């Protein structure tokens, strides 16, 4: 039983009178503990796929099962619950809330889980420690470097202990040195048994994953296991 099971997924956008068919029947599954890179040029549909996986968008056709739970016909409240429980997001532009400290940002998904305040703070600190930013807990995002921000974002994604981490171009806004540091962190998290999907268009980043899925014009053109390049070797 896979962590993610996708069958015959279709998605099209209505652009005025034209219909833009972005995903044309995607079939793939992800087993627990995998680290998958989704590659493709812009317009290949990789972001759309990630949005559907992240329940931020809905497919027109096809089925999506996440850890045995069919994701279908969700209203916003239900989708919010599932996102909170099942998924951790890592974005290209970090998307931290700029008036909240690093620790508060990490604690935010826990707040939506209605975890008590004290417990939340402890947990946030624990995850900040894991990404090596415990001393920065009280700092605002504006006081952090890009790499640090992304590490806070990763801590936030981890804090809710989701089943799957979804990373959308996690290194897109970073230089290569920090990119490798972030990838190193992602690899370590994966080593601990977490399932991670990384959307990227950078081949070197993709090579640091265990499996690469190539998307082109809305279909999977290649899906191969690769020998993982350890980011730690470059740091």
């Amino acid at each position, binding site marked *: 039983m896979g962590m993610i099971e996708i069958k015959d997924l279709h998605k099209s956008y209505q652009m005025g009178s034209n219909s833009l068919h972005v995903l044309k029947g995607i079939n793939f599954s992800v087993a627990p503990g995998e680290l998958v890179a989704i590659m493709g040029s812009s317009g290949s549909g990789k972001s759309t796929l990630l949005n559907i996986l992240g329940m*931020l968008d809905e497919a027109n056709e096809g089925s999506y099962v996440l850890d045995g739970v069919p994701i279908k016909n969700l209203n916003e409240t239900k989708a919010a619950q599932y996102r909170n429980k099942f998924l951790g997001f890592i*974005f290209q532009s970090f998307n931290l809330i700029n008036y909240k400290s690093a620790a508060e940002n990490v604690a935010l998904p826990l707040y939506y889980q209605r975890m008590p*305040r004290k417990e939340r703070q402890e947990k946030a600190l624990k995850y900040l420690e894991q990404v090596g930013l415990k001393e920065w807990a009280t700092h605002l995002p504006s006081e952090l470097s890009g790499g640090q921000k992304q590490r806070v974002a990763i801590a936030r994604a981890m804090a809710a202990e989701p089943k799957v981490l979804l990373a959308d171009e996690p290194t897109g806004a970073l230089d290569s040195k920090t990119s490798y540091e972030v990838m190193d962190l992602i690899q370590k998290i994966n080593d601990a048994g977490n399932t991670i999907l990384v959307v990227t268009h950078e081949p070197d980043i993709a090579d640091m994953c265990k499996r690469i899925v190539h998307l082109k014009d809305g279909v999977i053109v290649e899906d191969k296991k690769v020998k993982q390049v350890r980011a730690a070797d470059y740091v």
Partner: protein
Amino acid sequence: MFSRDRWKEIIEVLTTNWFRTLLTAFGVFWGILILIILLAAGKGLENGIRADFGDIATNTMFVWTRSTTKAYQGLPIGRRFSYTTDDVAAIWAEIPGLRFVSPRNQIGSSEPNVIRGVNKGAYNIYGDYPEIIRQDPLTITSGRFINPLDIQESRKIAVIGQGVVQDLYEEGTEPIGSFVTIQGVNFKVVGVYKKEGNEGNQNAQKEIYVPFSSFSKAFNRGNRVGWMAITAQDGMPITAIKEDIFSLLKKKHKIAPDDKRAVGHFDLYEEFSRVESLFGAMRFIAFFVGILVLISGVIGVSNIMLIVVKERTKEIGIRRALGASPFSIKLQILMESVFLTIISGMFGIVVGALFIYGINYVLDLSGPVDMFMSPTVHVGVVISALVILIVSGLFAGFIPARSAIKVKPIEALRTE
């Protein structure tokens, strides 16, 4: 709703842009301040005018005679006539619903008409029944007022005003029991009065009341009546029955029924109702203007909240990606709006109250002012203003909150 984190967040959001928050709050603050000041000013005017009316029985009219303006039953135009004590009896007998019918006589005060020892003065002298004190109230400061026995026995007694005492008596002399000479007739002083209400009017303190019967005898009025003060029972407006009284008087004095001028009258009730409706209109205007100003403040809050939502589109998107439910987002925006409205509204109420307090303080220092007295706002008004604030805060937050939950997380996250 009372979670510490939510409040922390509200404070955080509102303090992120102090200047904008203050400007927004000012709209609501100003609205509620204007509302309170307008209402207080209206109340002050109302109090002032009511004080001028004093404790006078407002369901009262005064009736006097004028010359006829129509020939009738062989009697000529321009004829003068007088009411008599028979008329009083007839009104009592034929008109139901009356409380007091007091015939009155008066001597004017154009030249000195009262002497006591070496002092003299010019005063209005009234011949009255005991009931007059309940129609045109005066406060007896010492002694007593006219009683029915005085009327029956036509006692030559007088109740004099404090102004008269000041004029005719040396400091420290006891007026009760002394005699004053009114147009050559001696009257024994049995009481001293003071009139409340017309503060500015010193003449009201310079009057002398004697029993109606004694007046008639002493000053040769026979059974004639100068004018009448007629008060109807509560719940029966004098305005409604005054035409019946006029008809009766016209019939008794052979006046053409359609002679509008022969019977002169002043209807206090009508006058008072007019003032009452003026008060009503003032309150309406105060509420109307105040609430309009408040609404413009509320629209300001709504506008700013919309901008805030727009600015926080991305943040809202992040929150929703992290699992915030639409309801939680909506609640957040609504609470921010209500909180801002209530805080600024409370501030407006407090400043308004201080302002009213200041005005009252100045009024107390400078003494009474015509037609204006102790402006106040009823607690009920303040409470309803608060309710209006909460409702308008919800209203102000509603549209922005709706637009906030319309934000699709995916679109929100795309905005860079």
